[in-house]
């Protein structure tokens, strides 16, 4: 079942082409490594998918919904169904880890937030960090909080931009294995990384951005 489809997508930044008639389809439950060099459009791809940016031309169809034609409120509702883990993670710095992780649940008014937060903290190896203030965490811990926040509301799609950037090798492996397991339960996951080696290591589907096109390796 096709979950994501890019049809003739064009995107330019002040005259520089990032995508030109880019086309790609991703199935439900796929785990995709998106690889490209720095500044080649990984983050743009994820921003287009999360409707944080609009393409100059083309259609982006997610779950049979063309997200280009959505109004503000529909975009907000659409974003509730995706989990985003960005390279530069934004947190409410003076709030606790628990509060930051529970934001997607707060916005969807989900019950039993506390239990879910505790389970997810266990999953990302942040047990006992719940009541710590975000600003007191290290880079690696912040990254894991971002991952926990991106997956806590069981989204249909998870978009992760270099989530293992500040992690050591063991922690990176644990996190990627956890995301691969989530994809086996039907979640579509796109993980953007600069490291081709990392992508090859886990033997998953790889997409690459080359010459303003998205190609399957």
């Amino acid at each position, binding site marked *: 079942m096709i979950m994501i489809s890019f049809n003739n997508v064009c995107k330019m930044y002040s005259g520089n082409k990032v995508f030109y008639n880019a086309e790609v389809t991703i199935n439900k439950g796929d785990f995709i490594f998106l690889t490209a060099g720095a500044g080649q459009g990984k983050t743009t791809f994820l921003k287009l998918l*999360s409707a*944080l940016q609009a393409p100059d031309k083309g259609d982006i169809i997610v779950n049979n919904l063309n997200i280009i034609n959505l109004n*503000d*409120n529909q975009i*907000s*509702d*659409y*974003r*509730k*169904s995706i989990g*985003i883990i*960005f390279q530069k993670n*934004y*947190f*409410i*710095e003076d709030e606790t880890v628990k509060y*930051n992780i529970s*934001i*997607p649940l707060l*916005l*969807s*008014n989900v019950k039993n937030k506390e239990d879910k937060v505790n389970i997810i903290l266990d999953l990302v190896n942040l047990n006992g960090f719940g009541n710590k203030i975000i600003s007191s965490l290290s880079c690696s811990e912040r990254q894991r909080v971002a991952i926990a*926040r991106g997956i806590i*509301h069981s989204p249909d799609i998870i978009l992760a931009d270099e989530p293992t950037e500040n992690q050591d090798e063991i922690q990176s492996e644990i996190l990627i294995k956890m995301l691969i397991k989530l994809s086996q339960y039907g979640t579509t996951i796109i993980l953007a990384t600069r490291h081709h080696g990392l992508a090859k290591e886990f033997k998953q589907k790889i997409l690459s951005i080359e010459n303003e096109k998205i190609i399957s390796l």
Partner: protein
Amino acid sequence: MKKLFLYKVNLSLYYYLHHLMCIKSSFKFYCAKPMKYIPLTIVIALASSLILTTYISLKNINIDLKNYTNEKIIIFLEKNIDAANLNNIKKNLEERNDIYSVTHYTEEQSLKLYSENNKNNNKYENIGLNPLPQIIIIERKISNFKSTDYSKNINNFLKSNLYVNSFNSNIAYIKKITSFKNLLLNFSIFLLSVLVIFFIIINSNYIKAEIVSRKNKIIVYKIFGARNSFILIEHIYLPIIINLLSLSLGIVFSKLLFIYFSSLTNEFVPFIELTGSYKDISFVEAVIAGFFIIIVSVITCYFYCKKYFKCIY
């Protein structure tokens, strides 16, 4: 269908709950950093009290003017006037369209009227020493007294009549108080316009500062699917609280000013229940002012929040 309905009801309830939470957190925010907001509160309070004082003055002038809906002219007649000439004068006055009451007072009646008006009801026993002449008091409809012809006609008649000693009118006072009222009204409209602009500028700067300081929170909320209205609610209550507090303080300031002004007239004015010729701002007027402040705050917040949100996303 039922599931969707229940989901929507649940979401609406959550939004109402969010409103309550935001009111609570805004109060907490104000109490946690009072020194950040008190200068702003005092500036808006002073501005509000200036407007309220002008409004109270206008209100009292209007109440005063209600007692002067007609021009009153008192005509002092000559001692030697006979009944025929008196009737001629009365008839001439009664024939004029703008005059609707002509009352004649004998010497005795005019003395009685004088004593009544001076709150002295003692009978004057020695009428032979009465210094007052016969008088005619006419009440005249006030219409466009700014035109030069308004008083010319009647003045010429009274001046040319041999049996009229002199006459006096309260039109000068009415003219003065009406022009002062108009001046005050224009001033208050100007003041209100300036202060609304000032109020909007202060609020917009405050909102900008708040949004910049909560930039991360707004981005996180937006990324995870919060609607604009949801984020807006978080920012709307603190300005409303600040502005309502300012208005309350402004009312207290204007009351203090009012007491000071009243004391200048040597008239006793109690703090809450005001008797006598002066009227203070009523509860309903205060509520209307509160609503006005809320509406301006909400419109300003809505407009500027949307503007600054766009810069952030």
